[in-house]
């Protein structure tokens, strides 16, 4: 296997709020190798954005890294100063933020904002920066003439593509893409991904792709990490994760994949209940209150992420019963009967 570019080890991040601290991610570890794309998936609010932002330490004021390491090319980024981080952002690690639609400054032309990054980080001349910005706009399929427009003159999907262009401006070695195409139709999404992947391949760059779209994961990721309630619960290469998942949460997720061929009157199967509020560390397995396969042991004992196969890890006490759980998980009554 190629070398690790990014190694996140035992990372924990908390948000201070009036009622205490939300432990949004807790003891999270994952690795992104050179040239690979790692998918990060999981329910809304499970901590994906928090994990992505902690890597480059662009976090809200009430957030703090409470433990762990973020090793980039072997160097831990956690203790670095803002100044030191600035040298890494854009040219080493670039981010397409989830709030892409709102991330542009409304009072400046879109082109100026992209060119500024290129001039400041790369020392390019204004003319070089303009030429590069035009090239990037063509890459994401926006008329370069649109560089002269203000963000409000762009549609939602155009703003998102502008942010994709900006993140690619300095050929980063690692791209953290947080829901990069949520505002795009599938044809545009397909084109943008085809082009970004071609560029990635040419540069040997890596990507951390945060998404809810399991189709995008299947088509673009080499490996996948599944998060639940601030933890990674399963991690495997993409084929294994889709073909032979073992964690009940992954089984539930897989169930809810939409399909254009499903009968229209069939209600979508969803996992009943809500994830825990992470103000205090939950006892036992975090998924137990919603897990159709939970046993008394699950409610007492926190399952650790353990190897279950080559490159395949899962945090569940009952992975030995995975075959049986997979068979039951496709039945809607398994999820509607309510947790025992």
């Amino acid at each position, binding site marked *: 296997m190629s070398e690790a570019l990014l190694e996140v080890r035992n990372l924990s991040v908390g948000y201070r709020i009036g009622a205490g601290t939300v432990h949004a991610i807790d003891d999270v570890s994952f690795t992104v190798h050179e040239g690979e794309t790692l998918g990060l998936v999981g329910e809304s609010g499970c901590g994906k954005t928090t994990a992505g932002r902690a890597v480059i330490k662009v976090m809200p004021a009430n957030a703090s890294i409470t433990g762990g390491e973020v090793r980039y090319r072997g160097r831990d980024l956690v203790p670095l100063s803002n100044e030191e981080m600035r040298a890494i952002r854009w040219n080493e690690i670039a981010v397409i933020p989830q*709030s892409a639609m709102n991330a542009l400054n409304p009072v400046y032309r879109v082109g100026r904002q992209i060119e500024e990054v290129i001039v400041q980080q790369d020392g390019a001349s204004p003319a070089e920066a303009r030429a590069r910005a035009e090239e990037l706009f063509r890459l994401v399929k926006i008329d370069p003439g649109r560089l002269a427009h203000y963000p409000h003159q762009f549609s939602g999907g155009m703003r998102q593509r502008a942010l994709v262009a900006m993140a690619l401006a300095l050929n980063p070695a690692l791209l953290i893409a947080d829901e990069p195409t949520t505002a795009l139709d599938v044809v545009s999404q397909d084109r943008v991904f085809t082009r970004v992947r071609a560029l990635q391949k040419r540069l040997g760059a890596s990507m951390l792709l945060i998404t809810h779209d399991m189709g995008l994961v299947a088509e673009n990721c080499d490996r996948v990490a599944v998060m639940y309630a601030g933890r990674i619960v399963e991690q495997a290469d993409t084929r294994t994760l889709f073909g032979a998942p073992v964690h009940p949460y992954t089984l539930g997720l897989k169930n809810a994949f939409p399909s254009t061929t499903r009968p229209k009157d069939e209600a979508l199967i969803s996992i009943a209940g809500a994830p825990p509020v992470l103000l205090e560390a939950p006892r036992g397995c975090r998924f137990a209150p919603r897990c159709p396969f939970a046993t008394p042991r699950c409610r007492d004992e926190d399952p650790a992420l353990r190897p279950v196969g080559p490159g395949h890890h899962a945090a569940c006490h009952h992975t030995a019963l995975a075959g049986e759980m997979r068979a039951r998980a496709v039945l809607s009554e398994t999820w509607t009967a309510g947790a025992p």
Partner: protein
Amino acid sequence: MDGGGPVSAAPLVTARNVRKSFAARGELAGLFARGEGAMVHAVDDVSFEIREGEILGLIGESGSGKTTLGRLLVRLERHDSGSLHFQDGRDLAALGGRALREYYRDVQMIFQDPYGSINPRFTVHDTVVEPLATQRLGDASGRRDRVARALERAGLRPPRAFADKYPHELSGGERQRLSIARALVLEPKLLIADEPVSMLDVSIRAGILNLLKQQSREFGLTILYVSHDLSTTRYLCDRIAIMYRGRFVELGEAERVIDDAHHPYAQALKAAIPIPDPEFDRPRSEAGEDPDEAPQESAGCRYAGTCPKAMEVCHRRAPELRPVDAGHSVACFLHHPADAEARTD
């Protein structure tokens, strides 16, 4: 013009030949590629009806005018020409002052951008209570109950865990649900939902879709559902319209439009859906240099520059949206060969 279906259902909204353009003004015009006076025809001669109680899906290319059309319906923009009428004959062009405020009791919009459309200094409770206050509905405790109910319905459970949070303390999906709660708190007749579930994972998405479906079936809520996700749109909607560069190119009963897509752009959309199966090798769209934004001034079909089936006539004339079947209309010469011939030369 319209895509068939039960004739009995009365229209809640009637749009006839609606147009809306934006200009690239001032010093901008010189910089803009197409030069002085360049216009973006965001909505270009669109006619349709939204029937009372139906869920109409709107799918289309990024930048094709979906949000603009929604903004016209909630009167955040005014149409340049054509007509837009609401149920009881209210002309959207004529609404102002009190009439406009009353209109907002009936019509609400969930905005595409859950970050930009919410006041960052308002808590979750403040955000959802605001429309009730603006409409002077209920007393303090009545409002609190309605807010809690709306949060609960939008899946922000339990409501008290969210009521005092600020938007920056919410995840992307939680913010999207806040927008949904805000739009539903007035119990409007028409909801314009602009990509309301794009940031939600499948399991929460299913909950919201089921919620919208239930609001429609039980309370007769009429919905214009803007989305780029074909499978959820097919699941949720009664009819679907497909938009391309300002125009409707296909309109009809939901399953028909998706399962039996006629327009080449609609077929391209279907072919571009990522398949959640790593063993399946879907042919990827070639990253060819097709025109990013074809000049809209061209007299021909807007899709002619990209369309693999384009014929000579397509570059000269624009096809009209006309029925191919009961309840299914398409704007393409392939399906209306007589139109192409009758109009040639």
